[in-house]
């Protein structure tokens, strides 16, 4: 494993502390309004300054990062589970069931994802819960298609037939051999999707369809800061830097893992 891998792991560990131990780190209540100190720059009491309502920016950022990352994780995990159940059902049952389930997947994938998400989020009404739901509805189909492909490939492997021919219980064989071969690509893929989902959430919150103020969320905070760009640029710069930090830490780890799994030695020999 290279240097990038280490950087990624350290960045994600640090992120995990922010996300899961946020209340311990934040010096103030993120929703404590104090109009007498609004739009302040960096001071000793407020290390990243204050926002348009005099709230401590650092505390808000800590909570906001937690909100964005937790929603991404929920979206990715739930979509992965739904996709897994749907995709493996289609692949195992095959025939008409598979055909029918595949058409459903096709339909879900026929929409441009963002438009679909925005439509659902809009109709359900903007809230943290609804944006989570909307993102799950629009992303599960990708996982389902992938799982189906993996299961079908694994089912075709000669050793499954061989094991069955030797008298092994077919169901047991599948649980033991097919499922693990799905798990590895699925988890890699899900990991890649975290950064992607994070971008979607901050984008939707930015346009006002995601998490609603006063709940701290990175995209929503940037949106709120738009009117103060010239007077208080720190209000949009800090949350943006944090988004980039989160997405980058997942990207760099994903990138180094991809390099690692690459069959490098084979290509070096070129025989």
């Amino acid at each position, binding site marked *: 494993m290279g240097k990038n891998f280490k950087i990624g792991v350290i960045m994600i560990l640090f992120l995990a502390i922010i996300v899961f131990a946020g209340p311990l780190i934040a010096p103030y209540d993120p929703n404590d309004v104090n109009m007498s100190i609004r739009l302040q720059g960096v001071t000793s009491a407020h290390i990243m300054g204050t926002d348009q309502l005099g709230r401590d920016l650092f505390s808000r950022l800590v909570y906001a990062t937690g909100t964005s990352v937790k929603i991404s994780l929920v979206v990715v995990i739930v979509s992965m589970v739904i996709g897994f159940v749907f995709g493996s059902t289609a692949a195992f049952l095959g025939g008409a069931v598979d055909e029918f389930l595949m058409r459903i997947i096709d339909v879900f994938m026929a929409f441009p994802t963002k438009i679909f998400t925005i439509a659902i989020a809009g109709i359900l009404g903007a809230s943290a819960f609804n944006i989570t739901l909307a993102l799950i509805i629009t992303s599960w189909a990708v996982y389902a298609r992938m799982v189906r492909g993996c299961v079908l490939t694994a089912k075709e492997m000669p050793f499954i037939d061989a094991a069955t021919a030797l008298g092994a219980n077919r169901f047991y064989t599948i649980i033991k051999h097919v499922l693990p071969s799905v798990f590895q690509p699925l988890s890699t893929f899900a990991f890649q999707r975290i950064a992607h989902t994070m971008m979607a959430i901050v984008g939707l919150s*930015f346009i006002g369809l995601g998490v609603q103020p006063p709940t701290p969320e990175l995209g929503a905070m940037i949106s709120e800061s738009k009117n103060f760009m010239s007077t208080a640029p720190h209000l949009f710069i800090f949350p943006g830097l944090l988004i980039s930090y989160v997405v980058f830490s997942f990207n760099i780890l994903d990138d180094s893992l991809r390099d690692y799994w690459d069959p490098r030695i084979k290509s070096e020999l070129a025989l």
Partner: protein
Amino acid sequence: MIRYIFRRLLYLIPVLILTSFLAYMLVYLSPSSPAQIILQSRYSGDPTQEQINDFNQEYGFDQPILIQYASWLKNAVRGDLGKSLSDGSEVLDDFIYSFKASAELYFSSQLLALIIALPIGVYSAFKANSIFDRISRAYSLVGMSIPDFWLGMLLVYVFSIVLNLLPSFGYTSPQNIILPMLALGLSSSFSLIRLVRTSVLEVLHLNYIRTARSKGLSEGQIMMKHALRNALIPIVTVVGIHLTHFIGGAVAVETMFAWPGLGNFFAKAAGNQDIPVIQGFVLLSAVFFIFANLIIDIICKQLDPRIDYQNEGGKNNG
């Protein structure tokens, strides 16, 4: 070729029907009924039960869902997608108007992305693991982590607020397009650099590149005549898919710059729960998306003489 397209179109029919049904049914995801939503916006207050009943009867909402859907679809096919609840304009007209604005922004920004990414990606692959390659990989990895709308804000901050050179938002002068185009174009270029690099690198490892070398071609000739053309196939596919995402793909940037594109318009409608607009836009964008994907497939097949139309994906050696 014709047969291939025909078969693809035939296959699209059930997808289109299901898609339109889903688009129509979106309304029923809402916790309140269409009548409530619409009357609320009309009278700006809670409607009475009597008003709701009248409304349902007038607009056919008391009919079974399938019949409602059928009449909506019948009108949709004739180009009548209803009127917006907020300003009473025709949904189709709104779509066409904002489609144009979106297309201007998106096509110019993707062109910019290509102009940036192609040379960097190709050179990066050509000099794999060199210092240039390392820097460009790090640069694109960092760039991919920056949200496009935030990049737009940084550009506005520098060019509009600090330097006062360019307008920060609007759609009135030709200068307006510069900043959103830069934001979107730069944003797309980062991942495109990586894609170009990987595609070219993959081709460079293939046997016919070795043959080209054995023939006595120079490295430059190998790159231009053999590697690029083949690497272009996946690149065109991805750029094509990017282009189809222009409906909604730029929503945050459009909102940021008050660009009257589809994303911006649609996000507003969704925020206002403007039901006819939501249904119409979802349907139109899905139809557009489906056909755009078909066109990309056809272009890719043109680029790659190996793919034969009778036996889809069958023979794909090399």
